[in-house]
């Protein structure tokens, strides 16, 4: 199946990546060739196969819920593009 321009726009919206029209056209071509490549899988009848969900034969563990307070708030905030006192700042969401 080919990925038309509208589909590219739709998935770029879902993925929160803005694209200009030129990029939409080149991606439509690129992604279509990748989808064509992966559709080789349709040759296989997999009706009775159970999908693999984990490659290791162990079940997920639980751990103790312990406080691990390294007091790194300032360091964490330093990595933020914009912060104010002890908060991350984002563009206004509510008018």
């Amino acid at each position, binding site marked *: 199946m080919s*990925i038309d321009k509208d*589909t*590219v726009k739709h*998935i*770029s919206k*879902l*993925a*929160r*990546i*803005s*694209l200009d029209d030129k990029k939409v056209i080149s*991606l439509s071509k*690129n*992604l279509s*060739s*990748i*989808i064509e*490549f*992966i*559709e*080789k*899988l*349709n*040759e*296989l009848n*997999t009706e009775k*196969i*159970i*999908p*693999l*969900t*984990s*490659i*290791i034969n*162990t079940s*997920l*563990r639980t*751990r103790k819920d312990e406080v691990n307070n*390294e007091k*790194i708030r300032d*360091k*964490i905030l*330093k*990595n*933020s*593009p*914009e912060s104010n006192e002890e908060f*991350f700042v*984002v*563009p*206004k*969401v509510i008018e």
Partner: protein
Amino acid sequence: MKDLSKKSLCTLVNGIKKKEFTSEEVTNSYISNSKNAKKLNTYITTNFDKALDQAKNFDKTRNFDGLLSGIPIAVKDLFCTKDIKTTAGSKMLNNFIPTYESTVTSNLWKEGAFLLGKLNCDEFAMGSSNETSFYGNVINPYGDKLIPGGSSGGSASALAASLTPATIGTDTGGSIRQPASFTGTVGLKPTYGRCSRWGIVAFASSLDQAGPMTQNVEDCALLLEAMSSYDPKDSTSVNIQVGNYNKNLNANIKGLKIGIPKEYRVENMPDEIDNLWKKGVEFLKDAGAIIKDITLPHTKYALPSYYIVAPAEASSNLARYDGVKYGHRSKGNNLTEMYENTRSEGFGEEVKRRILIGTYVLSSGYYDAYYIKAQKVRQLIKNDFDKAFKDIDAVLTPSTPSAAFKVGDKKDDPISMYLNDVFTVPVNLAGLPAISVPTGYDKNKLPLGLQIIGKAFDEQTILNLSLAIEKRADFKRKIPQWWK
């Protein structure tokens, strides 16, 4: 100044212990080489001053409790290093300074090693040529127009050019083994769950594994032992004792059964690769191994399945890069626009391509047709290996379908780039350990490697088999230092 940079990791460890040279002298050798190799573009961040301090400190205390006492090591810039910039080769993380250390690098430091610098890689480890890095292409020491492979291209190139005595990379679809093969070095992808993924910038979590990249098999065994551990902080880390890989390294492989899968004889494979493979078979026969023809019938579906599973996981892993808590932020008139511009400007072309593919195969209406289908095929690929391993101890294949190619050759054709990983990807899908060992040269004098695939958690056997090949191949890295 003594040039100690041509010595193997094991030789350096022993030499420091026996006072043949100091950690400071070793560190200076690598710093000097690294400073003279800017043309290779292997480093994103250097840590030379601190490394030298640590070496001097080591020489004062001479504490030999660890396996890597007094050894400087540069690592792929995908491992988070506390208080040292970690970029994953992306503009998105150009200013990211982790507040924590990855478990794998912590293990190295616990064993007495210290950080020389952070090495270039494909952006978020997505690439097979190290051409997707925001920090520029890495060049292969084997030629000024050649790619080093990817995604651990900076690691492979730095190792082959003697800028670090050994290094570590990550392998999601071949990102350790393919660059190792392209640079005449040894690279091992451990069993999924052998090394902790904690603190490694995530690409595709069900496939990612960290592993050693070294000058020879003995070094590989030592470094694997040093970096492996069970880690409660990684829920997929497996609680199985780490082997004494180095101590138990043994080239006596008499009686081991080696499978040769006919499906790896792909169309248009150069004769040189086929001949190398035959040479590998002869080496193992000579060492007393028993060769068996086997079949892994779903091999040709591994790549298509991988290019659903890996982008799907990547698209969800990379959703975290939104310009709020860390990383690049672009301007926008509202929150959504800020997200969209941040991700458009912060990610490179290949990463965006994979996020979009991943988003598509997971989106409503396509999830069953693509993602679930791929997971079913992944089961079939795993079943192939499970069945084969009932009769054999390991599998021998070529590592790559070609030698290193030129910068720009495959950049605009994603499919031809993806085909590079045709021999390495099945192993990641099945979670198995595999190693690439340099075995010969092609007609252009470029290195070629063979891959040995083992049973889950049987890294020892593939190391032993590699040693048997290494002894017989007598492979020498012959690299004129044109970059100086």
